[in-house]
Every structure is written in structure tokens, then in C-alpha cells.
């Protein structure tokens, strides 16, 4: 109690707050948006995480934005949370803004620091996986993506350590590492802002989607895939229905759950550091309740629920035909709104995936407004394709181009070369019918490259050694053995 009391005193000096919004999605899914904010005026405040302060001491960046995402946001779930601006592509994504004239070294040093801060492989975001642009105010914006990063508990643990009450109390305490294995989609975001020398702010969000039906199956203690007979509803109008024959209806039925069922190990303790509102949890009913009361709050899931429709659907496909070296990337933009949409599509392609601009085309109900290509450089820089296009109302535009797959050098293949190479998600920005700027990511892609048989050098060594042994033996023979002169022995012919 004493500890919490002291912490509560401290919290008056800083702005710290956290809240959790719970929303229903179709087919008995639930969406959780957890937000943690910390802002301080003096940099030596004890509340602001020490690690982040250290990070800021080592970098000149004004703004750092890290997103760790796993899974794919389904179109059926409606628009992305937080207008999509908090969501990254699968894997890790880092954006940072540096003062004018900053060099690449500052960026490389920053991603290395972030790597240790969040226990992720962001140190692999080198110059081949990032690019920079200069903004209108002269600041340099860097963008890097690491689609291979598989977000898991080892990222969540250090992430939660930075929240106001760590994983001891508050909203952060509810989310346990092992829960990640049951989620359908998870997105962690960390934003650090520096305004002037003294004003620091840290924003963290954890957004995730849970399939309640599957979660309940697992938590009932049965086998993960098992289904209780009483949970199966048989189609009523089938003549063949017997004790052993039953056509399942499989419609998720209305279900009432209590939050403790989803967070069985949660303590539901208010975080004493939180100086903002006392009501932390927004229930799907639209009521804000304190965290302690949320423990027993009942959520009614309605399987018939429909969600707000998206204005724009984007689908990207990477097609590798039988040709060994070429591939095809097509992105389909479907405008579901009654007016035309301006879409900006930015995609970063690794240097070994060279776009062939002569094949760049848009078909269907769309027109290209402008296209800009940051030329890639072998083994050095990625290609960045920045396209603005207009999609007609209710129409579908398909942006396509071919690319050439470059052969890598022997040592450039990763240990799992046969898996293929992860291509980062593309960034799509558009203004929706309400005038809000929305952001979304396409799916990533896996690019198979021609891969040598890595056991071949071993075979070559064996073959070469055999040849050398044969040649050496023959030449050795020729050099040191002389033919015996034929001597006619008496009493014999020739």
C-alpha cells in the first residue's frame, strides 16, 4: 500500500493515463484497444521509463514510431481501429523523423537501440530495408520494415515494462504473454515524441482481436479442436437426421461472456499511476466503467452484428509463374463508396526484386495521377514506388507490374533460403467519405528466389578431390616409372 501511495503522489507531477476499449466484431469476435500514455515536463521525472529516456539521450530523432504487427486484419471486421494510423504491416515497422540534415548513421543507431529496447530484430533494418524522404519542413523522415519479424511474447514483455504500471496492475496486467497464442490479430505500437528539450511523451497501444468462440473452446479445458455435442445445432429440415447423422448449422449463437472468462488470470487492479479519468474500460455497450468493475461486466455477443463498411479494400497478390526469373505483382483497389477516392500507394521492394516500369499499368476503373520511383541499388537500397491514383465510385482498379528476380550471391542467402523472402506490406493512404485520412497496409508477400542446392559445394569438393587424385596418380606414374627396355632373352622369340 505504501508503495502505491508513493507512486500515486508521483503521478500528480506527470500525465499518465491508460484505458481499454472493447468493441464487438462480426462472428463473435471482440476487438480490444488498450492505450497507455505518459507525458512529462522534466526529463528527470522518475515516472517516464528510464529506457526510453536513455534512448532519447542517444538519438537526435524528434519522433519515433514503432509498430509490431502479427496477423492480417480481415475485411469482414470493418475499418481498421484508430483510422489505421496505428497499424503496421506484418512484422516490425519503424518510422522516425530527424532534424534537417541528419545522416543515415543516426537512423541506423536508432534502430539498433530500438532492437534492444523491444527485443526485436530491428537491427536488421539496414540501408537495404529502409528509405528516407525529406519533408516540407526540412526534417528527414525514415521508414524501415522488417516483415520477417514474428511478434510474440518476447516483444510483449519489454513493451509492457514501459507502461505506467508495467505488468503489475492496470490494463497492462490483463494481457499475458501466453494469450498472444490465441489471438487472431495483434498490433503493438510505441510512439515517442520530443517537443523541445524538456517535453517528452510516450504513447503505447496494444490492439488485438480475439475469436471468442475458439477461445471458449480452448478455455473450457477440452481438446483445442473438440466441440461438445450440445453445442452443435442440427439442421431441422433434413430427412436423414438420426442419432449419428446431423447436419450442423454452425451459426455462432448469441453468447454472454464475462471479461474474467477471457482474462482468467487478470487481477483487474486499477493502476495507481494513472492520473486521468477513473473510468478506464469502455464496454461495447458504450459505458465507461472502472477497471475493478469491468471484471464482472457481461458482454453480449451478437453473431448477426454487422460493422461499418470500409470505403476501400486493397488486395495485393504476388504471382510467380513457371518462368524462373520473372514475377508479377498486382494490387486491386476496390472502392465501395459512392464517390471517387484518391489513393496513395507506397511500396518498398527489396533490391533483388527489380520492378520493370515498362509493364507498369492500371486497368479497370482507375487512373494514375502520379508515380514516383526511388531507384534501388544492388545490395544497397530498396526500390520505392509511390503512386497516386483515383478509383472511380463503386469501381475496381488493378495496378500491375512485372518484376525481375535477381540471383543472389552464395553468402547472401539466409539460413532458411528455401522459405522464400518476405516482401514488406505496402502502405495505402486515402481520404474516406467523412474526410478523415485513413491508412492501411496490404498483406506481405513471400518471394521465392532461385535457390542453389546448398549441399552442392560438398559434392563438388568430393568430385574435385577424386579428379585430382586420379590426375596426380597418373602423372606421378608417368614421371617416376620408366618402361623397362625390351631385352631379347635367349631361347625366346622377339
Amino acid at each position, binding site marked *: 500500500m505504501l508503495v502505491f501511495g508513493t507512486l500515486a503522489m508521483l503521478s500528480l507531477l506527470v500525465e499518465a493515463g491508460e484505458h481499454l476499449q472493447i468493441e464487438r466484431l462480426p462472428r463473435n469476435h471482440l476487438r480490444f484497444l488498450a492505450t497507455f500514455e505518459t507525458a512529462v515536463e522534466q526529463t528527470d521525472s522518475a515516472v517516464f521509463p528510464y529506457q526510453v529516456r536513455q534512448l532519447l539521450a542517444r538519438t537526435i530523432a524528434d519522433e519515433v514510431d514503432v509498430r509490431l504487427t502479427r496477423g492480417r486484419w480481415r475485411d469482414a471486421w470493418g475499418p481498421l481501429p484508430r483510422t489505421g494510423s496505428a497499424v503496421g504491416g506484418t512484422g516490425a515497422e519503424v518510422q522516425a523523423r530527424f532534424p534537417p540534415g541528419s545522416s543515415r548513421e543516426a537512423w541506423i543507431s536508432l534502430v539498433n537501440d530500438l532492437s534492444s529496447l523491444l527485443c526485436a530484430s530491428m537491427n536488421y533494418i539496414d540501408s537495404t530495408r529502409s528509405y528516407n524522404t525529406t519533408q516540407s519542413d526540412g526534417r528527414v523522415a525514415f521508414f524501415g520494415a522488417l516483415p520477417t519479424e514474428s511478434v510474440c511474447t518476447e516483444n510483449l514483455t519489454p513493451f509492457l515494462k514501459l507502461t505506467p504500471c508495467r505488468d503489475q496492475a492496470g490494463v497492462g496486467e490483463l494481457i499475458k504473454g501466453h494469450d498472444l497464442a490465441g489471438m487472431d490479430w495483434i498490433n503493438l505500437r510505441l510512439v515517442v515524441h520530443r517537443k523541445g528539450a524538456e517535453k517528452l511523451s510516450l504513447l503505447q497501444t496494444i490492439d488485438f482481436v480475439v475469436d471468442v468462440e475458439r477461445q471458449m473452446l480452448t478455455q473450457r479445458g477440452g481438446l483445442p479442436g473438440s466441440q461438445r455435442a450440445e453445442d452443435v445445432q442440427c439442421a431441422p429440415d*433434413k430427412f436423414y437426421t438420426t442419432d449419428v447423422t446431423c447436419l*450442423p448449422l454452425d451459426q455462432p449463437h448469441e453468447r454472454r461472456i464475462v471479461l474474467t472468462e477471457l482474462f482468467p488470470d487478470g487481477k483487474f487492479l486499477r493502476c495507481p499511476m494513472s492520473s486521468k479519468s477513473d473510468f478506464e474500460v469502455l464496454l461495447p455497450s458504450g459505458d465507461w466503467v472502472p477497471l475493478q468493475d469491468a471484471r464482472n461486466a457481461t458482454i453480449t455477443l451478437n453473431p448477426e452484428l454487422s460493422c461499418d463498411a470500409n470505403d476501400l479494400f486493397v488486395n495485393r497478390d504476388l504471382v510467380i509463374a513457371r518462368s524462373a526469373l520473372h514475377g508479377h505483382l498486382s494490387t486491386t483497389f476496390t472502392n465501395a463508396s459512392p464517390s471517387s477516392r484518391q489513393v496513395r500507394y507506397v511500396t518498398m521492394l527489396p533490391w533483388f526484386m527489380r520492378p520493370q516500369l515498362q509493364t507498369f499499368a492500371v486497368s479497370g476503373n482507375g487512373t494514375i495521377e502520379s508515380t514516383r520511383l526511388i531507384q534501388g541499388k544492388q545490395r544497397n537500397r530498396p526500390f520505392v514506388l509511390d503512386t497516386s491514383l483515383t478509383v472511380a465510385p463503386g469501381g475496381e482498379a488493378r495496378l500491375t507490374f512485372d518484376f525481375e528476380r535477381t540471383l543472389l550471391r552464395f553468402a547472401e542467402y539466409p539460413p*532458411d533460403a528455401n522459405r522464400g523472402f518476405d516482401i514488406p506490406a505496402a502502405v495505402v493512404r486515402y481520404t474516406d467519405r467523412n474526410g478523415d485520412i485513413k491508412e492501411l497496409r496490404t498483406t506481405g508477400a*513471400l518471394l521465392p528466389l532461385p535457390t542453389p542446392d546448398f549441399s552442392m559445394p560438398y559434392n563438388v569438393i568430393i568430385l574435385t578431390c577424386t579428379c585430382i587424385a586420379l590426375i596426380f596418380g597418373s602423372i606421378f606414374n608417368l614421371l617416376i616409372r620408366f618402361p623397362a627396355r625390351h631385352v631379347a632373352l635367349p631361347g625366346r622369340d622377339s
Partner: protein
Amino acid sequence: MGLAAYVLRPEGRRQIAQILERHRLHIATFLFVVGLLWPLGLADDRVNEPTRISENALMPGQVQTYFGSGDFKALNAFRNEVRLWQAGDRESRLDSIEGILAAAGIATARQHYSVRPRPDVVINGTNIYGILHAPRGDTTESLALLASWTRDRDGVVNEGGVAILLGLARYFKRWGLWSKDLIFIVPEHQEYGSQVWADAYHGETPGGSDSLVRRAGLIQAAVDLEFYGQDNRFDDIDVAYDGPNGQLSNLDLVNSAIHITKHQVGIGATVQHGREEETWKGKVSTLWKALRSSAVGVPTGSHSPLIPYRVDAISLRVKGKSDGMHDDASFGRVVEGIVRSLNNLLEHMHASYFFYLLPNTHRFVSIASYLPAALLMATGQSVLAMGRPTKDSDMLAVGIVLATHALGAAIWQSANRASNVSIAMAYVLQIPALSILLNKQALRSQVDAYRSLALGLLLGMISALNFSLGYVLAAGTIVFAYAPRLPRPAGIVVMLSACPALLHALATKSGENFTYLAAFDWSFYHCWTPPTILAIAMPAWTLAFAVVLS
């Protein structure tokens, strides 16, 4: 003095050449006989090796399978539904499949196609497929499960396969452990439908078929379920692994499937519908079936069309009587076990063999052991060319051989537009023309020599691409070497009975549609056997026949 010194000396080399030239027929005969009989030796356990799993990630049979315990009621109902759909029309069937998959939360898409497998037959069909997105997956890689609706050969409906596929889709949705998306495909026709689907998934939509609207990244592996007919019990499962043109699935996938079938679920397994015997005869018969199927080169099931696109695919075929030991649920558990194994894969399958022959389910022959069979016979043809008399007409002989092969390629190019008779005439008319040209003994010997040289070279190339086709062609063309040495009437009879196109027509039972089917196999199934027969084997046959006649 050592071999090197002997070869390095000019007179040594000349001596070797003389020996080869003098005994070329004996040497060639020896090579032909050894090559021809080589596969018989491959069935011996001292030559072949026990199969093993090379990819450690697969871990076949290491998970408990639960399918069937709570799902058998649904399976029985799906069987009833499948029976009912056969009475209705296509649209209502597709709607029902879509309904069942949608209830499980799986979005579907359709693909219409039309195929013309014979000049007077047009087949229309619609493939339906649904994608179960892996939780926390990013649609970058997937596994495919297929169950075609009807068998192309006789129109029998795959009742068990489709019912089990739908049951599995519903069951797999409840698991949260998938690392790859799962694609459930019901092609309307066993081979036509899956060929069109596989082409479209990889960006090729030949005339008459739709492109696909839903995709799920790279397909890492595919399993096809074949349970045709109305019975719901069976004894054994046959694992089919061959794709077109002798391309095979990775041996790890085949081994995993066999391992799970036999040792986890406890069902008997076979390959090539062979009898699972330990006898030498049984193994030879299984090897021969594998050779024959690869040599013909057309798909052998719904899984085959995916294999050229770097998708390792197998078909599981039930065998046995209606009162067999096992039921739908056991079959489903086999598939569950295989899919769970494949779900573990971190990389595309690459650790094991892509070139192999299976004499039974637990022994295999690697390429190093079987490739010499075809190469020895190809070498035999080349050795025969040693007897060429050196004369001025050398260039003419080379020209004749090249021109005949070029003509063969031209005939192949026009095959899809020409009738059987005109194609046959195009080859047959060459024979008297050539035999008049080859009136001189020297030119005749030279043409014969260059013909066998070219044949030896081409056979070697074919064997490297498709061993089975190379072996069968090399075996079939052995008589070309001996017919000119026989008395003329006997030679003519031998040559007539060894016409490659005729033998191919008999083997594939293509009959009156020979040219159309040859062109169809090439353009639709991307099968190399017809062009190989018409542009490589037939010109060699015409030349050999002309040498016999002149």
C-alpha cells in the same frame, strides 16, 4: 605403364578407336542389354535404400489426431448431402458447398472453365474453393486440400472425398495453431478442373477459364482426397505422387503420408496400386507401373497439375471393399496428420529427393542408381556411330539427318490442325524418298551412323529431364540399330511394329483422336511426351526405315 600413358600416346588412342570400331555391335548390344535389364536389379534390396524423413521439421505422426470423435455426425450428414447434390444441378451444389464453408467462416470463390478434351466434346465446369485464413497469418503461404467432384474417366462422384474435405474444413477452423492458410478446393473434374485451377493460381488463364479472385500466397504442399463411389469403408490407402512429365513430389511428403497412414492411423498403404509384397517380382511390377506412368507424362490425379508449379502434392486413394476395416473418420485422421505435419514446415520442402523410384512404400531408389539404365542404352546408340566410313558425303549425311529432324519438328507444330492420316502420310512419304536418296552404300552407312549419334545424344538429354520417358524411348529404339542388319523383309516387319507414334497411340488408347490428343496434352497439360515422340523418335524411325528399305 598405366592407363594415362596409353591414352596419351597417339597409337594408344588409335588402338582404342580400332577396338571400339571393330566390336561396336558387340559393345552396343552389351550396353543395350545391361541398360534394358538394369531396372530389374533396382528391385533388389542391396541396390535400393530404406526411406527416411530428411526434413526434421515435418515430424510425421508426432501429434494426436482427433478428427472423427465429435465430427462423425457431421461427416455422415455431408455424405447424405453429397448424394443429394448429384440429383440437383451444378448451381445448387455450388451454393450448398459455399453455404457449408461459409457457416464455418470460410469465404469462397468460383472459377468457371471450359475444356475441349476431344474435338467433338466440350466440357464446362466450375471449381469452387475457400480459404481458411490462419489466425495471426499474413496470407503469405498456404497448404491446399483438394477433393474433385467427378472422375474424368467415368464420371463417378467423389462422395467420400468431398464429404471429408467439408468435414475437415469445419474441423480445422476450430484450431488456432495454423501457421499457413488452408485452401479447400473442389474442382469439378478430377484433372481438367485442377489443371485449370493450378494454372490460374499461377497467373496463366488459357482461353475459356476465369482468373482467380482469392489467393493465399505460395502453396507449399497439397493433398488430394480420392474416395470415389458410394461406399464409406475401405481397406488401404494408395499414395499417388507423380506429376506430369515424370516430375515428382518431394520424397519427404510421400514418406510422411505413408508413415502417418501406416504407423499412426494403422491403415495399409501402397504406391502405384502395387501389391505391398516383399518379393522381387512385386517390386519390379511396382517400379514398372511408376516408369510407365511417368513416361506417358499426363496428370495421374488432381494433385499432378500443381507439381510443375513447385507445389509438392499427393493424392490419397482409398482401395478395398465396401466392408473394409476403415471408415471416413480414419481417412480424415490421415489427412489431419499430414496437414499438421506440413503445418510445421518452416521452409519449402527441399531436404529430400525430387528424383526417385519407389519399389514399395518403404524402399526407394535414388537417381544415381537408376539413371544409368537409360544412359547406357543412349551410349549404345552413340557407340554404333563409330562405324561411319569417312567419305566426302559426310556433310550430305549430316544434312539429311538434320533435315529429317527439322521436318519432324515442323510436323509436330502443325499436329493440332492436321488429321491422323495426313500426319501419318507426312512421315511415311519420307521413307521412299529417303531410300531413293540413300542409293549408295557409303551414304547409307553414314546416315545410319549420324542417325544413331543424334538419337544417342537426344536420348541422353531426355533421360535427364524425364528418366522414364528416356528409358522407354531408348528401349523402343533399340531395334533401329538391328533392323538394317536383318534380311530386308524381316527388317520391314520389325520397323513397322516399332513405329513410336503407333505404340504411343496404342499405349494411350488415343485412337482416332491421336493428333488432337497429342496437341491437347501439350497445350493443356504441358506434357512433353507427344512432341518428343513426333519430333525426336519419329524422324529417327523414318531414317532407320529408309536405311532398311534402300
